[in-house]
C-alpha cells in the first residue's frame, strides 16, 4: 500500500512537473512520501491524521502554526523534542506519544527503505542506459 501510493504519486509528480525547479520537485516528493506513509497506516493514529490534515491546510494556517510552534520552543525537554518530531504530537499525553512514535518510526523506516530501493533501481537503470548508449 505504502509503495503503491508512493510510486503512484511519484509518477504523478513526474508527469505534472517534469521541468520545475529541483527544490520544488524534491519537496513534492517528500510530501508524497509522508502522505503515502499516512495512507498506509491506520487512520486512527494521530500522526496520520496530522499529516493528512496538514496537507489540506492553507498556507496562511501553516504560517500561523509555525509562529505558534516558535513560541513553544522556549522550553525543550526531550519530551517536547519528540513531540515536535512526531506529527500531531503537540496535543498528546506522553503515553500516547510513545505509542504514536513506535508506529511512526516503523512507517518511517519502511518509507526510507522503499525510497532507497527506488533510488537504487533507478540508478541501476541509468547505468544500463549509459552502457547501451
Amino acid at each position, binding site marked *: *500500500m*505504502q*509503495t*503503491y*501510493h508512493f*510510486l503512484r504519486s*511519484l*509518477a504523478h*509528480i*513526474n*508527469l505534472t512537473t*517534469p*521541468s520545475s525547479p*529541483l527544490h520544488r*520537485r*524534491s*519537496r*513534492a*516528493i*517528500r510530501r*508524497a*512520501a*509522508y502522505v503515502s506513509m499516512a495512507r*498506509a*497506516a*491506520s487512520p*486512527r*493514529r494521530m500522526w496520520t491524521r496530522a499529516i493528512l490534515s496538514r496537507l489540506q491546510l492553507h498556507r496562511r494556517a501553516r504560517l500561523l502554526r509555525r509562529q505558534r510552534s516558535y513560541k513553544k520552543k522556549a522550553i525543550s525537554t*526531550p*519530551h517536547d*523534542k*519528540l513531540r515536535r*518530531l512526531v506529527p500531531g504530537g503537540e496535543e498528546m499525553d*506522553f*503515553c500516547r506519544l*510513545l*505509542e504514536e*512514535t*513506535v508506529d*511512526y*518510526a*516503523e512507517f*518511517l*523506516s*519502511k*518509507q*526510507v*527503505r*522503499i*525510497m*532507497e*530501493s*527506488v*533510488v*537504487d*533501481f*533507478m540508478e541501476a*537503470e*541509468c547505468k544500463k*542506459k549509459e552502457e547501451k548508449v
Partner: protein
Amino acid sequence: MEKEAFFGNSTVINWQMRSPDAAASLPNMNSGHVNIVWDQTIDQSAKFGSALSSLVSSPSSNPPAAAGGGDSVVIRELIGRLGSICNSDEISAPSSHYQSANNSCYSTPMNSPPKLNLSIFPNPAHMPFSADPGFVERAARCSTFGCSGGGSHGGGQFMFPEVEKLGNAPEESCGSGNAKKRKAVMKGKGKEAPLSSSITAVTNPPKKASVGGLNAKRSKPSEKTGIEEESARQDGDAASKKMEEEQIAKPPEAVKDYIHVRARRGQATDSHSLAERVRREKISERMKLLQDLVPGCSKVTGKAVMLDEIINYVQLLQRQVEFLSMKLATVNPQLDFNMENFVNKDMDIHQNCGLLPPQPVYPLEATASSFSFANLSERTPLISINGLELQSQVNPFSQPSLSRNLSMQLPPLEGFADTACQLGTFWDDDLRTVVQMGFSHNQENLFSSQSFQG
C-alpha cells in the same frame, strides 16, 4: 486512565469466568452468554489495537443467536481471540494483513460473518470445523507461527482431518486456557502473580493482618517508587513468602474492591496510584517496543538516554527521507518511460524462470482467465512468506471480470516486484499490500476497504 485500567482488567476476569462457563454452556447456548463473550472480546480489542475493531465488529453486527446456534458463536469468539493474539503478537506488520488472513482461514468471503459458513456448506464433513475447539488451538498456533502454519492452510481444504482428530468438547477448555496464558504472556506482566496473591489474601484469615500491620505500613510508601516495584516483580516467588505476611495486612475489603485492577501485594490500592501504575507500565511497554525498533538502543539503560536515542533515530529517518526525495528529484525525470520498458522485459523473464513450483492448488485460481494473473499467483509465493496472506490474496479472484482489470494494473507491479527480489526481502509486505491495494482499488464496492487496508 483509570477507566482504561478497569477495562483491561475486567477482561482478565471475564476470561477466567468464561472458560469453565463456556465448556458448560456449549451444548445449550443462550444469547446472554453470547453477549458476555462479545463484550469481552470487544474490550480486548479496545485494549490491544484499533485495527482489530473492524474485524470484531463485522461478525458482532449480526444478531447473536440468529442462525447456526452455538457453533457460529464459538467461531466468532475465536476470531476475536485470534485477532487479538495476532495484534499483540505482530506489532511490526500492518495488522490489516492479519485480519484478512484470519478471515480467509475460515474460508469465508472477506466480509461475511462466520455464520454464513454453516449455510454455505451444509455438508456434514465441513460442519465439525466450525464447532471444533481443536481448531481454535490450531489456529491460534498458526497465528503465532504464521509462516509454518500458512502452507497447510493454503492447501485447499483447511486441514479438516487433523482438526477432527483434535477436536472434542473437553479440549475447548484446554484451548482457551492456552490462549489465555499466551495473552498473559503477551502483556508481559506475569498476570498469575497478582491473581494468586489476591486470592491468598482473601482466603487468609484476618488474624495475621494484625500481626503484619506495622510492617506493611512501613513497606507501602517505599514500594510506590518504580524501582522497588520492579525488584518486587523480579523477585517473584522467592520474595513472595516474606511479602505475603506483610501484605496480608491489607484489609480484605480493599482487596476485593480492586481485585480487577492489577494491584500486587504491598502496592498502594487507591485509584490514583493504580492508574499511575498502569500508565507507567504502558510507558515501559512502549519503551521496550521502541528499544527493539531503534538500532543500538538495546544496550542503553535509562529512559532519558533512550528517549534521546529515539529522538535521534526519528530525526535521522526524517532527514533520510528528505535526502532521498532530493535524490529522487534529480534522478527521476530521465527514467520515466525507460522504466516501463524495463518492466515489460522483466515480465518475460519471469514467465520463464519459475523459481518455485506453484503453491498448493487454489481452486479459485483455475477460474481466473487472464494469463498475467496466473503468472502473478505463481510468483507470489516467492514474495510472500505467509500462506495465509496468499489465501487472502487469491480469494478476490473469484470474479473473472475483475482479473481482467487486474491484468491492466499488473505490469508496473511486476516490475517492482522484481526489484524487490533483487534488493532484499524487506519489501515483501509492502508488495503484498501493493497487490492487495490493486485489488481493493478495483472492487471497492465488493469489499469494504477497511477489511483490506486497515
